[in-house]
């Protein structure tokens, strides 16, 4: 008597088998295969679909909307660009002049621009504009990754926060100050804003008394201002997998 393999019987139970009738006949005769098949069926019953908690659409929309940039129609086609061939020399001259002027301007006003950036409010994040900046420094990416994990853990845990979590927050807080400074210096207002927001939460985490109430307040703050999502967006890289999925 030819027995069927476990994969054959799993396929049978999932109605993926191409030989269902033959397996069915065999199971009526073979106790061993019938027992294995029943064990598979029992496993599938145990792991049947669990109830899905409905998400709060309004809440999710509000969190998402703040990070949606205003899209513009598709770029003009290549042919329409080529129609401007007669203008390329003039465009080149103008571009060269602009580059020279911009270089001089940057040189003369570098300090003023830096101060201006420092004085700007956090306006590029969550609710006020698109988040388009991605960290190019691997150290900052690692920092954001660690922060995301910590905040997710805090967000999903219950009760007061343990000592290990608070120590991690303290370490991240020290590093965060450096990265805020770096982001400001490089003029990356969006990244600086996220890091400053992160710094505030980490400071709370580091200094608040270890009570359940303070931990609850911290989670509320994180969820209200969408910090976790901001960090994730900032940290995420457009990996090939998702590029492929989007096509």
């Amino acid at each position, binding site marked *: 008597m030819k027995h069927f393999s476990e994969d054959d019987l799993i396929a049978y139970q999932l109605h993926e088998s191409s030989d269902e009738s033959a397996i069915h006949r065999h199971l009526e005769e073979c106790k061993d295969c019938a027992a294995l098949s029943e064990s598979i069926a029992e496993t599938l019953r145990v792991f049947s679909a669990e109830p899905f908690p409905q998400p709060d659409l309004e809440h999710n929309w509000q969190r998402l909307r703040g990070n949606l940039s205003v899209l513009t129609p598709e770029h003009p086609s290549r042919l329409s660009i080529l129609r401007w061939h007669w203008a390329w020399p003039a465009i080149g001259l103008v571009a060269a002049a602009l580059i020279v002027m911009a270089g001089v301007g940057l040189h003369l006003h570098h300090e003023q621009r830096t101060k201006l950036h420092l004085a700007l409010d956090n306006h590029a994040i969550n609710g006020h504009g698109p988040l388009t900046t991605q960290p190019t420094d691997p150290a900052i990416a690692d920092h954001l990754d660690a922060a995301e994990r910590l905040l997710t853990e805090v967000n*999903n845990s219950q009760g007061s926060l343990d000592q290990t979590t608070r120590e991690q927050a303290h370490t991240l807080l020290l590093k965060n100050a450096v990265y805020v400074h770096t982001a400001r210096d490089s003029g990356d207002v969006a990244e600086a804003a996220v890091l400053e927001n992160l710094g505030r939460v980490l400071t709370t985490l580091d200094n608040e008394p270890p009570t359940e109430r303070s931990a609850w307040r911290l989670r509320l703050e994180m969820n209200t201002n969408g910090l976790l999502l901001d960090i994730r967006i900032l940290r995420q890289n457009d990996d090939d997998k998702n590029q492929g999925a989007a096509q």
Partner: protein
Amino acid sequence: MSNRRMDRAETEAIREVLGGNRDAYRVLMDRHFSSVARVAFRITGNKEDAEEAAQEAFLRAYNKLPTFRQDSAFSTWITRIAMNTSINLVERRKRDLSYHAPRIADEPSAADGTVRVADGHASPEGALLSLEAATLRHEAMAGLTPMERAAFTLRHMEEIPMTEIATALNITVNSAKQAVFRAVGKLRRSLAPVAGGLR
């Protein structure tokens, strides 16, 4: 996850979004966020991660909307993206050994939005048994790779055809089947010591 063509309302919403009206995206979100979050929930195993993954998927879809070819349904496209963001999230969680977030059945609590797998009206003994069973299920699921978990839950719980799962996960149909079979085999063996005690 159907392969139906997009209806006029969705086509119009996309046209408006591409024209600069980001609020029009709400139409697509209202229609598909729940189903996308449900798929993400099957893969991630908890509500918080599911909503994070679904949000990330909608954000990615929005940013790639100018390149979206409308010869397939938006629902198909966004679900595929959500599967990938969910798997990525699970992989990140698995990498982080310090991550111990409460899962579906560890501590069901309506106040915290965690999932109540156990019967809320059961007796204390029944509730304890349900909690224990749910914990065993969670531990068994944790033994699967993200790909196995995704393929299994989508096929068995969402009843999505293998061909669509394979396309979404960017693998062959045979690989998708093998992932499901491996998952069922692992789950069966992990429950074998307590077989008969889980209902």
